């Protein structure tokens, strides 16, 4: 919310510097996101008059424009504005001015420059380039037409659109609807700085007898409705200072009537509306019947749904209650008589309506957050006063339908409790004093009975009172403490530990962890197989389903990496999703890994398999790995645009581990020397290694310690259908030194038996 500082000062005297004020508001919960000098943005900018437009010699879309920027000063500049005309008044930024190119990015200092070979002494600005985009919406490449100002060329732009007004940019949290106004913020400032809010006078004496006929059919959604007629108003522009203030607050001035309603809304937070009294005979507030439409003030047609609250003239809707008025009944240049509305609408109904219509307005934001019904009548009087002042006319008597009483209750809380929760030691009278400054009524001494003011709908519990005391006392005035209590070791979820172990193990083996999105597209669903959870509102097709496998995304990123990296070894540990029945889905945690490299597929497979084995060992899990590791087939590599060989594995990390931490066990090693032998054999590919290994183990009579394949070859050097395998054999005993003879005997046996059983050619 934009809040002009001078306006705030009308309601509370401010002795702090602006910077200190901003800090104080921020630390009381109303974050000041910035303080802008409204006029400062217009330094080195003046009103100019377009004298002559000539074509640009080198660009079709650009024009060479002569602009008068003083009684006799003419400058030439290049302009691409589509709506530029001779005689038009425009906003000219001269070198040194700060502009926002095309309304985007940071402010840039303008310099005299050449555009396509032609010198340009400045720039004719669009509204968004000088921060007026909100008030003067425009098409791309349209410049701001300042002709309506009728001001003489050379006048500083600050005089037209701003002043030296300082504007606070406040982030009001959704619970504090009461601070959506100058008055509301003034109350906060008063409470923080121990000042009093200044009251303004209101009260109107009726000059005409006319009274508006108001019927409220739905008292639940409209608790209170005030209306008043004002006869014979003269529509014109509002006073310049009012227009500037509205602009500073981010609202576009329209005419003196509409401006007055907006002005009072900004001032005290009560949204108001003005109807053209000659187009509206009476006011009937009711819910929408089937299939009604309205053309709103934004000239768009809205299809209204049943149960939305509308203002009607007895037949058709003339306003969407609390959201936006209708175009037909709105105040125009030819309006003579008006009806003013000041009402209280139900926050939830307003919210539902504007969400359904996608029509958020200054009015709906305030109603949604809850307004102060105690101010509804005052607001009507205030806006009447302003209109009489700015537009003349004769006011009628106010019509009131509905009743109001402060429904915000009383809250009981002891000063002791407040201190205990906050961790501070305030005296009860200090607590009472803080609450009173905020407008709360307080009675009682040990237990405080706190009456909540009409504007504070957010305070209903003792905890809310504690917060009020905390934030006004100041959280940064409290001494931080550490937790007290028994010191107990923090238990760690077993699965968390297993994940951490798996991560460490993968990293230690030279693999890199990545994280990919939890959703993927339909093609990935087919690939992963199984039933998938589908998203209702994906932003793109890549977010349509929740993953059941991490491989599709992993292969995607691995493929991209393979373009810049020689070898890719990636893994991810994360959740996948299996639909559950009427309950939350099952979310197993998986580890997935991919290796891409220039080695042959056998070597790559063996590397991945080695890593997989190590991981299982590290997390102390045994499982059949046949189905969890695979070489990526040609078609799949093509699909992911992977040119080299690739191997993947993926499996579910165990949820419940019997031992909370996989524990390693020491095995005594043999002091006796080991004997190593190498063998190589050429064998039918149909015979799998595990059969070879089993035979060797059987023949070695318990002295074989380790068997380790170090070379696998199939190709030109060996016959078709054969594979060459080379391996180390390590023999040893924990009881004695082996003799070379006994090892040689085993080797001889092995060679013979491999030849006999598998028809293998064996070389030592």
């Amino acid at each position: 919310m934009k809040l002009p500082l001078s306006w705030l000062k009308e309601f509370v005297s401010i002795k702090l510097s602006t910077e200190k004020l901003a800090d104080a508001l921020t630390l009381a919960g109303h974050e000041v996101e910035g303080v802008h000098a409204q006029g400062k943005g217009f330094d080195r900018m003046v009103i100019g008059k377009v004298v002559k437009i000539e074509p640009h010699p080198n660009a079709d879309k650009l024009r060479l424009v002569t602009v008068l920027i003083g009684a006799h000063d003419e400058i030439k500049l290049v302009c691409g504005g589509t709506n530029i005309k001779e005689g038009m008044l425009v906003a000219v930024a001269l070198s040194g001015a700060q502009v926002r190119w095309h309304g985007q990015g940071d402010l840039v200092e303008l310099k005299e420059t050449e555009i396509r070979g032609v010198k340009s002494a400045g720039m004719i600005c669009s509204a968004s380039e000088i921060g007026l985009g909100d008030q003067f919406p425009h098409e791309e490449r349209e410049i701001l037409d300042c002709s309506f100002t009728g001001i003489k060329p050379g006048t500083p732009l600050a005089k037209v659109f701003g002043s030296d007004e300082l504007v606070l940019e406040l982030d009001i949290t959704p619970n504090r609807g009461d601070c959506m106004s100058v008055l509301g913020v003034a109350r906060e400032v008063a409470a923080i700085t121990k000042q009093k809010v200044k009251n303004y006078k209101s009260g109107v004496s009726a000059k005409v007898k006319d009274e508006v006929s108001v019927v409220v059919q739905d008292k639940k959604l409209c608790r209170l409705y005030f209306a008043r007629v004002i006869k014979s108003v003269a529509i014109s522009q509002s006073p310049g200072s009012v227009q500037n203030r509205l602009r500073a607050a981010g609202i576009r001035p329209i005419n003196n009537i509409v401006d007055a309603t907006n002005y009072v809304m900004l001032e005290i937070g009560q949204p108001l509306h003005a109807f053209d009294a000659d187009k509206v005979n009476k006011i009937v507030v009711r819910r929408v019947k089937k299939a009604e439409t309205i053309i709103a003030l934004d000239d768009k047609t809205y299809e209204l749904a049943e149960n939305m609250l509308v203002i009607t003239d007895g037949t058709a809707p003339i306003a969407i209650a609390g959201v936006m008025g209708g175009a037909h009944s709105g105040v125009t240049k030819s309006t003579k008589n008006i009806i003013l509305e000041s009402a209280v609408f139900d926050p939830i109904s307003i919210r539902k309506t504007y969400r359904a219509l996608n029509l958020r307005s200054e009015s709906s934001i305030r109603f949604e957050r809850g307004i102060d019904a105690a101010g509804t009548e005052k607001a009507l009087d205030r806006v009447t006063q302003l209109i009489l002042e700015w537009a003349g006319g004769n006011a009628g008597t106010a019509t009131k339908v509905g009743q109001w009483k402060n429904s915000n209750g009383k809250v009981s809380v002891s000063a002791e409790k407040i201190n205990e929760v906050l961790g501070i030691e305030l005296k009860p009278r200090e607590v009472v004093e803080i609450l009173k400054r905020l407008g709360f009524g307080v009675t009682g001494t040990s237990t405080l009975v706190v009456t909540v003011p009409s504007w504070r709908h957010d305070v209903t519990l003792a905890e809310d009172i504690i917060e009020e005391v905390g934030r006004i006392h100041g959280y940064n005035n409290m001494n931080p403490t550490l937790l007290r209590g028994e010191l107990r070791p923090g238990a760690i979820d077993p699965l968390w530990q297993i994940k951490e172990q798996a991560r460490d193990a993968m990293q230690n083996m030279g693999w890199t962890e990545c994280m990919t999105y939890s959703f993927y597209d339909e093609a990935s669903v087919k690939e992963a197989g199984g039933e998938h959870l589908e998203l209702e509102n994906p932003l793109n097709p890549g977010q349509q389903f929740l993953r059941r496998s991490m491989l599709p995304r992993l292969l995607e990123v691995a493929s991209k990496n393979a373009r810049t990296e020689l070898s890719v070894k990636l893994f991810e540990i994360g959740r996948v999703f299996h639909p559950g029945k009427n309950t939350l889905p099952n979310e197993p945690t998986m580890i997935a890994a991919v290796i891409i490299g220039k080695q042959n597929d056998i070597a790559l497979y063996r590397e991945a398999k080695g890593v997989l084995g190590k991981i299982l060992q590290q997390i102390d899990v045994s499982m059949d790995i046949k189905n969890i590791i695979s070489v990526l087939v040609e078609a799949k590599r093509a699909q992911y645009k992977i040119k080299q060989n690739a191997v993947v594995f993926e499996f579910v990390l165990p949820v419940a581990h019997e031992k909370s931490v996989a524990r390693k066990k020491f095995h005594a090693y043999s002091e006796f020397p080991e004997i190593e032998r190498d063998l190589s054999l050429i064998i039918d590919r149909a015979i799998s290694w595990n059969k070879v290994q089993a035979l060797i183990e059987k023949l070695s009579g318990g002295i074989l310690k380790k068997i380790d394949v170090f070379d696998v070859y199939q190709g030109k050097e060996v016959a078709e259908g054969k594979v060459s395998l080379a391996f180390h054999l390590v023999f040893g005993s924990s009881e004695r030194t082996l003799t070379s003879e006994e090892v040689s005997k085993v080797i001889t046996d092995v060679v013979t038996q491999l030849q006999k059983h598998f028809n293998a050619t064996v070389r030592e």
Partner: protein
Amino acid sequence: MSSTESIKDLLHSADEIEEHARKEIKPDITSETREQLRLSFFGRAQGSITNLTKKLGALEVEDRKVLGMRLNKLKALVDGLLNSTAGGAEQSSHIDTTLTGKEPEVGHLHPLTQFMRKVTGVFTAMGFEIVEGSEVETEEYNFDLLNVPATHPARDTQDTFWLKNGLLLRTHTSPMQVRAMKSRKPPVRLIVPGRVFRHEATDAGHETTFMQCEGLVIDSHVRVTDLIGTIRTLLQSIFGDVKIRMRPHFYPFVEPGLDVDMSCLICGGKGCSVCKQTGWLEMMGSGMVHPKVLKNMNIDPKKYTGFAFGLGIDRFMMLYYGVNDIRLSWSGDLRFLKQF
């Protein structure tokens, strides 16, 4: 052998030897030179220190003590100088020592993992449990039980990925607050690290997916000042000597609610573009657990109080390492990952 040399002369000789040693034993001498030098000091026949040592025997007891101590010091010094020369690592002459070392193949953990470990480390040291929640949640746990009613404006700012079956992707790790309390009784200290999701278009500052760490403490007499102290411990453990400030903020599941700002790491609080000229960085949301949420946990708000906080690991990590695009975390790009 002359016995006329006074202790004074002998000490002077020691000084000369030291001076000589300091001058001659340079870091870049060859191992050959080094061995020659060693002999010149310690050689059995001609070593200057050896020679001096031999003279000890002829001295009076007091003088012997003085010279002995001096020589011990000298020996240690010269020995140290000799051993500190590069010649210690013998090098074959055929190796070009300017060749680059072979880059060892190392793996990397995701920076979010590394950062999460820093955070969990701080909390486990303070006796917090680590628990995890499910990433798909019910509307009830993600919103309702956390006191976020269906019509509440706060749901605006937490736009949600919905599933076709009515479930949703959790928008924060907070649902686990209530779930965890189903099986626990105060005193409770726990953190919930995990992935959360927001329904928004991605750019350098916005992601659909990010990592959060939730914290929850419930006990009798938990105070706002405990919350402030705990968070200060966290931020100072990770970022060093930073200032923090608490700013009231609104979250429906806490009351009072507090945002935590940390003095800007880039400018140290003077104001820069990273902190939008404020000198402060918004780090995390926190607050005292709302009594309605306590009730939803079956905890009596009259007996117990608690605090909760949620911190975005991505933002922390980005500030810590100077990463300027949140999407990099989810890109899987090794050029990013290998830097950590």
